């Protein structure tokens, strides 16, 4: 077993060099943080792989079974384990599972070596307590009794209990305060030298003691993937229910933003929305307050709600809302669902008490949790692993997730809330991912919308007018009609359909908004598929008859004259158009402009007006709807890093290989230069290479600032640019001479052969 092939690589970088392009590609895909920017060569790649943050990240993504195999390697007495020896450590683990785990670990370079598996030092450091065992006694600077088994066997029961506890999952324990009198069992164990003190308050159980207590099965039973009972449901029914939830969410968010449009909510100094506003909205929507908080958060993460207003102190619908409401229902839903999926906020925290006992307000910055998108994806990905229409029971999901990423188990607390939110949205129904939910995971907003298409009702463009003065919209309304109806009638009940009621109040509101009775009659006749009840027409006329018998307005300026002819002339004069005059009554014109401006316009037109004490003008235009600037429509919110595409992976691998070849090429002493300052030596070497047709080794910094090393066969040197052919990358390129950091001639008769190269 100790036989080592002569050409077996002895370092991580050497081993990486033996990996195929596919394998390197897989490494970069699994650990994308080391791939950006492209490492210049294998040595750089190896040192990036050793960065603790990167190692932690890679370990975090491993499941419990794979970590157990890693633990077995780490616990082995020797550095370097024959993969076959792992069978002894984990006898119950099926071969296929073990091999897959080894494959997963070597792919990620968390273990390396082909015949013998070795763990890089950073991985050892990152896994502090492999298999829940402490460090070796020697590392803890502890000398254990010679006959450990006997020493442990003689311990009193309470001390043994302490040891047993520490031999479990966590070898590190808290040293209890010593009450006066007899020392605690832990302290006695310290004195006996069976426990090591880490600091004033913590103790650690040496690995040897832990192994002794665990007996012949130090790793415990194999941690196989839990296989929770599968809940199966009819996918068609499931999707219909998902659509029900989707319809509800879209409708509610629309209503909520409509309410905020009419009366914006104040921005608290702490950043959220006030409890009073939240109560008001909950009441108006007929939902509970937590539900209102959820809708506010949902609107916010979808980019439909933001801080705005003249003083930036109000919560207002954003401009994106105007576009959103014009979209069809699946797209509207997809915007909400995608916004939720990638949101770095946990809406479920709203209303909960923080450490100081203060309830957290909805929309407040306290709800930001940067792990939220990862948690959501992890939960939904786990569900997506089941065939359509089936999923685990909700409690089992947490268990499954804990197995899938045990090192992130502390992040799983929000999972039940996340699932509840997913259910409210229709991403999940009863613990099973809906088709649209799958679409959302796989294809983002477009996938989500496709999943919902055909399930959500088509907008209708009519209502049914009834004799009790209600208007029933038998489905979601087209935006234009919904806007109009919001003025003409009051919403009485909403959901799949909307019930509006026309009252004298609502008719008056429409008249106030500039509608005439005729407009209303025409509108009702056009919008209603049923004959407009006589009582409704009568109501409109009745209110209109009384409406506006008195007129009130505020005006900026007026023009008056006893000479009605003169006024008609002014009104008809094209040159006075800029004064925006209109006739209020015989003898009086009014303007929305100030008196000064009107005077100027009239004077320029050749009239001889005289100013009078200030007057006013009728407001003819309703004020524009208030809007927050919000995010630019279409601009993505904060999102997780994009995974590397296969092309990018291949290019990066090529880059590494080329750099590596350049590194290995034997070359003359390089001429170094400060980039941007072209030294004579560089130019001389380059022109010599062009002349003789010999390859040169170049250190080069590209326009993006990333450095690379390459071997180039130069073709020409002119105008500050070197043209040449890069064999390894298989491309002809132009290099700016001022970006070349170093140059050396390559001795051609010894072609680089990386498989024989050793550092």
């Amino acid at each position, binding site marked *: 077993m100790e036989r080592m092939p002569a050409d077996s690589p002895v370092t991580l970088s050497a081993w990486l060099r033996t990996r195929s392009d596919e394998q390197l590609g897989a490494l970069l895909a699994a650990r994308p943080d080391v791939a950006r920017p492209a490492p210049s060569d294998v040595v750089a790649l190896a040192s990036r792989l050793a960065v603790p943050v990167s190692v932690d990240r890679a370990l975090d993504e491993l499941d419990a079974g794979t970590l157990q195999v890693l633990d077995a390697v780490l616990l082995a007495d020797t550095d370097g384990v024959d993969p076959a020896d792992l069978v002894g450590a984990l006898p119950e683990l099926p071969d296929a599972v073990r091999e897959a785990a080894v494959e997963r670990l070597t792919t990620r370079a968390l273990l390396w070596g082909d015949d013998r598996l070795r763990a890089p030092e950073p991985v050892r450091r990152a896994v502090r307590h492999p298999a829940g065992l402490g460090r070796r006694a020697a590392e803890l600077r502890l000398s254990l009794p010679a006959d450990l088994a006997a020493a442990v066997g003689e311990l009193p029961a309470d001390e043994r209990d302490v040891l047993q506890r520490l031999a479990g999952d966590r070898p590190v324990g808290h040293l209890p305060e010593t009450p006066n009198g007899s020392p605690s069992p832990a302290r006695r164990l310290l004195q006996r030298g069976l426990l090591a003190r880490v600091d004033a308050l913590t103790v650690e159980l040496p690995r040897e003691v832990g192994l002794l207590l665990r007996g012949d099965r130090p790793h415990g039973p194999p941690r196989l993937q839990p296989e929770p009972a599968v809940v199966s449901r009819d996918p068609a*029914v499931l999707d*219909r*229910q*998902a*659509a*029900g*939830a*989707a*319809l*509800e969410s879209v*409708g*509610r968010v629309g209503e909520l933003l409509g309410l905020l449009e009419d009366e914006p909510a104040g921005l608290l100094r702490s950043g959220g929305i006030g409890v009073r506003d939240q109560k008001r909205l909950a009441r108006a929507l*007929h939902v509970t307050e937590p539900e209102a908080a959820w809708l506010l958060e949902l609107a916010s993460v979808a980019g439909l709600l933001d801080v705005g207003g003249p003083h930036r102190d109000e919560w207002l619908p954003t401009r994106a809302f105007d576009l959103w409401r014009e979209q069809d229902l699946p797209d509207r839903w997809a915007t909400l669902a995608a916004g939720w999926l990638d949101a770095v906020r946990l809406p479920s925290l709203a209303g909960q008490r923080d450490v100081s006992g203060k309830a957290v307000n909805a929309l407040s910055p306290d709800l930001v949790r940067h792990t939220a998108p990862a948690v959501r994806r992890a939960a939904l990905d786990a569900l997506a692993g089941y065939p359509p229409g089936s999923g685990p029971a909700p409690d089992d999901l947490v268990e499954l997730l804990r197995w899938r990423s045990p090192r992130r188990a502390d992040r799983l607390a929000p999972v039940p809330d996340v699932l509840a939110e997913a*259910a*409210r949205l*229709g991403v999940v*129904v*009863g613990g099973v991912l809906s088709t649209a939910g799958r679409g959302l995971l796989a294809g983002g907003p477009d996938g989500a919308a496709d999943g919902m298409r*055909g*399930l*959500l*009702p088509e907008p209708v463009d009519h209502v*049914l007018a*009834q*004799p*009790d*003065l*209600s208007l*029933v919209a*038998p*489905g979601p309304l087209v935006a234009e009609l919904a806007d109009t109806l919001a003025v003409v009638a009051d919403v009485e*009940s*909403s*959901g*799949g*359909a909307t*019930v509006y009621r026309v009252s004298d109040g609502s008719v008056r509101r429409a008249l106030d908004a500039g509608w005439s009775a005729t407009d209303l009659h025409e509108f009702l006749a056009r919008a209603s598929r*049923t004959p407009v*009840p*006589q*009582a409704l027409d*009568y109501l409109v006329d009745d209110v209109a008859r*009384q409406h506006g018998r008195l007129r009130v307005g505020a005006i900026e300026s007026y023009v008056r004259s006893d000479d009605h002819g003169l006024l008609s002339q002014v009104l008809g004069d094209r040159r006075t158009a800029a004064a925006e005059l209109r006739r209020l009554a015989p003898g009086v014109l009014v303007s929305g402009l100030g008196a000064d401006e009107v005077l100027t316009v009239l004077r320029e037109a050749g009239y001889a007006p005289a100013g009078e004490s200030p007057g006013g003008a009728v407001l003819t235009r309703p004020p524009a709807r208030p809007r927050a600037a919000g995010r630019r429509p279409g601009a993505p919110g904060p999102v997780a890093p994009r995974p590397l595409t296969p092309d990018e992976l291949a290019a990066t691998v090529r880059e590494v290989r080329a750099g590596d070849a350049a590194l290995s090429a034997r070359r003359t002493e390089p001429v170094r230069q400060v980039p941007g300052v072209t030294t004579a030596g560089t130019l001389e070497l380059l022109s010599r290479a062009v002349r003789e047709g010999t390859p040169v080794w170049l250190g080069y910094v590209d326009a993006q600032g990333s450095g690379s090393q390459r071997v180039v066969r130069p073709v020409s040197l002119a105008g500050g640019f070197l043209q040449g052919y890069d064999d390894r990358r298989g491309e002809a390129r132009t290099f700016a001479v001022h970006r070349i950091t170093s140059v050396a001639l390559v001795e051609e008769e010894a072609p680089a052969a990386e498989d024989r190269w050793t550092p």
Partner: protein
Amino acid sequence: MNDGPLIVQSDKTLLLEVDHPAARDCRAAIAPFAELERSPEHVHTYRVTPLALWNARAAGHDAEQVVDALVRFSRYPVPHALLVDVADTMDRFGRLTLANNPVHGLVLTTSDRAVLEEVVRSKRVAPMLGQRIDDDTVVVHPSERGRLKQALLKIGWPAEDLAGYVDGQAHPIELAEEGWSLRDYQREAVDGFWSGGSGVVVLPCGAGKTLVGAAAMAEARATTLILVTNTVAGRQWKRELIARTSLTEEEIGEYSGERKEIRPVTIATYQVITTRRKGEYRHLDLFDAQDWGLIVYDEVHLLPAPIFRLTADLQSRRRLGLTATLVREDGREDDVFSLIGPKRYDAPWRDIESQGYIAPAECIEVRVSLDDEERMTYAVAEPEERYRIAATASSKLPVIRRVLERHPGEQKLVIGAYLDQLEELGTALDAPVIQGSTTNREREKLFDAFRAGDIRTLVVSKVANFSIDLPEAAVAVQVSGTFGSRQEEAQRLGRVLRPKADGRQAHFYTVVSRDTLDAEYAAHRQRFLAEQGYAYTIVDADDLAGPGEVNGPDRVDEPAD
């Protein structure tokens, strides 16, 4: 996408499109667990309430059926949360059971110990419970059966009442179906009531509620106590029972201000039962005078509060409530449900009309403009006087006369609330007036003359709102009312809904003063009519066409060409 007739709203209302081919099936499927709230022309509104869901459970429907009905008929996807809520609500029913224990008598038992613990600790419920027998059982004071059920309903843990009913003293009663038979909906109503044990049957005025009562008595075959609103109504019941059942005059007693007879079937007025002397109810022992097997509450929506309290003590007897509308202006519908029993039968008025059992009616609101003097009086009046001034404006008089002239050959009622106005109308129209102080004998005489056609027009106060049978009245003119009372509107309309011998249309006019409180209240009442499916028309008094004119009524008294 499903093309069902039903739209399920987030607020748990159900919209049923009535012209849809599947509307009938859908109505049948949702009726057990949803209350019909409004039934205007095109889209009916039902509401799913916890009470309705529990009643459905009590009637043997389970959550699966409810969810299935919603999903099957719904046009759009039903929100999952709503379905879950339905299932959860229904699941609360039946955790507690009221039952008879052979040893301890009436007991409350549970299948869920935690629920019983919660209930036992509830301040509202605890005083009604007796000794704890074991973990799952607690004794209930028999007299508290009704109140306990009411209290449990309020805290959200409705009890299933399996304690059953006493049979009461047997007394043979048969329906005498000679030359007539029970209509389908009446039969369904009786069956619904009988299988449920106790409850309320809602049928429009004129649809034959008395017969439902009679048929229920025939099912019970036991001594029966019938509670009615007033003496005239009581005598009408008596006449009807003699005509339609095997009961004879001697078997039916009248317990009223005038007579105090207790017979196997006794008809008592609410008024006499709630009469107090020296602060005590004098006639409560009526309820114990017989071992009643059935108690019938006529016009249950008018049940006065003291009788509510009494009814709580009568939970072991079968109870039948009859009404045209469960709308109570005091909002105590829930008490009716928990004390009398859940709604057992309800049908849209227009359905019964279309079957020809009640007369089709045309509802017209006539708007009268007040003259300047009246407007000024109205404008300066105290707020509490305003309605009276508007409602009794004398500008209405010529309009009322004109309305009556449109229907020369028909039996007409003028209904009002203010006695001065009624007297004035009686004089001006030369018609007899019936009001509170009119003796029963005088009333019966006038009603008989009206039925015979000797009197064409009667002016009546609100005493005539209820339970007088005037089958030939085809025109009602409402001149003033009790503010915006919706049930009054329903009752008054009911006066003209009894089917006419020749199938004529009935006419229901409301004369209101424009731009006053009168018009506002009228709008409130009319909304109710519209919700019952009656389209109404509003006309200006000046546009009121006479008989034979354009938009006027047909000349019914002259043969058509």
